[in-house]
């Protein structure tokens, strides 16, 4: 049987090879939401960079105004928004850069960085009531 593409070395790659994004043709990708796409094992979407993080952003629904600043400025497609609502962080793709926290306009912020190992429920219980004013 042919080897799985994931087990092939770069030196076994045939020059001019194509890497497929999906396991079957998707005619109109822009109209298909992420969770309904037939991702191929060769699509980076199927991988995780979560272990790059030292700190992770935690989302607190209570203060969020769904402005979508975090969605537009996240470099890594890691803010999940549906129907104009912010839903949460995709931890397999989030690299912990902290941009979403910086651009979040609410007070207290609706996204804050916490240590990677901390449980999200514990993080939520430690949420500041009002952020200290920056100098």
């Amino acid at each position: 049987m042919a080897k799985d593409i994931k087990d092939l070395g770069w030196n076994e790659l045939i020059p001019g090879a194509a890497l497929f994004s999906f396991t079957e043709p998707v005619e109109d990708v822009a109209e298909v939401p992420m969770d309904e796409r037939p991702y191929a094992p060769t699509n980076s979407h199927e991988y995780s960079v979560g272990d790059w993080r030292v700190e992770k952003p935690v989302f607190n629904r209570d203060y969020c105004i769904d402005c979508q600043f975090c969605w537009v400025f996240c470099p890594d497609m890691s803010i999940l928004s549906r129907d104009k609502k912010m839903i949460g962080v995709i931890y397999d793709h989030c690299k912990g850069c902290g941009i979403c926290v910086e651009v979040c306009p609410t007070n207290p912020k609706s996204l804050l960085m916490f240590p990677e190992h901390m449980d999200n429920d514990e993080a939520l219980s430690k949420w500041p009531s009002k952020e200290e004013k920056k100098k």
Partner: protein
Amino acid sequence: MTKKIKNLKEFSLSNDRYEGANLMCPGCSHNIIVREVLNATNDPVIVATATGCLEVCTAVYPKTSWDVSWIHIGFENAAVAIATAQAAYEVLKRKGRLPEATKKMIEEGREPKFVAFAGDGGTYDIGFQSLSGAFERGHNFMYVCLDNEVYANTGGQRSSSTPIGASTTTSPAGTVSYGEKMMKKSMVEIMSDHGAPYVAQVSPSKWKDLVKKVQKGFEVNGPVYINAQSACTTEWKHAPEDTIEVSDLGVESCVWPLYEIINERDEHGIIYNTKLNITYRPKNKIPVEEYLAAQPRFKHLFKPENRHIIELWQKAVDAKWEHLQRREEAGV
């Protein structure tokens, strides 16, 4: 078909065609720009990427981060690769040999868009011959320069986009040098002077301005050049979470003015009208010093012996801003 994007909430309905778990650094602007450009349309997009961070980090064997048709090409020829793909598309269309799904989209007014992404090294320097040729021949495509002012992917060498005073690995600051000696090349004007119908300068932090310009560019027939400010956390040496703030400082200080130049040409290619529009005017133009201070690549400029370079910077930025305003006013 121009996608309706009235506000950010509406924009957030976009389904990204660029994927996570690519290997770009945390906080990289290249990614933010690519997202904003691709999400500016729902039409099919064909992308060619010149070698540089974006290409190398989104196609690490055996993975791809692209859900659009994507061409992996050399450092020096992204413009020609995408122009050729577009020319091939025109031929297939004329001969009626496009796939049925594509034909249907064209009937709905959703013509495929052809986009090249390249770094400043691949644009200002090494890909310039291919870019200039493709613009001169008037192919129908959009070229987006991800301008981080340095050859980031190979360890931070200076390019002709690197601004004066920046410390890079080939223009290091130290006891005998204040860093880069040359002023940044004026790429936007150079591309406009090719007679291109539309060129613009954008910043990912001003997402709406960027999206509007990209949409305008997609509507135009002929080569379009977009110069995108791309704060690079690794080479500008700011913290990853500060990417948007640093970009904003660039815009608010007029170091990175947002404007567009439109050339109207007749059927012989003669330009009969040129218009320059400044698309964002800072309410309070902040001192260049604030922009420089936010990036450790300029740290040494704050030593007394290098202060004159900061003054020079301010002078250069003021002169450029003045020049842009004069061009806008005169309609040339």
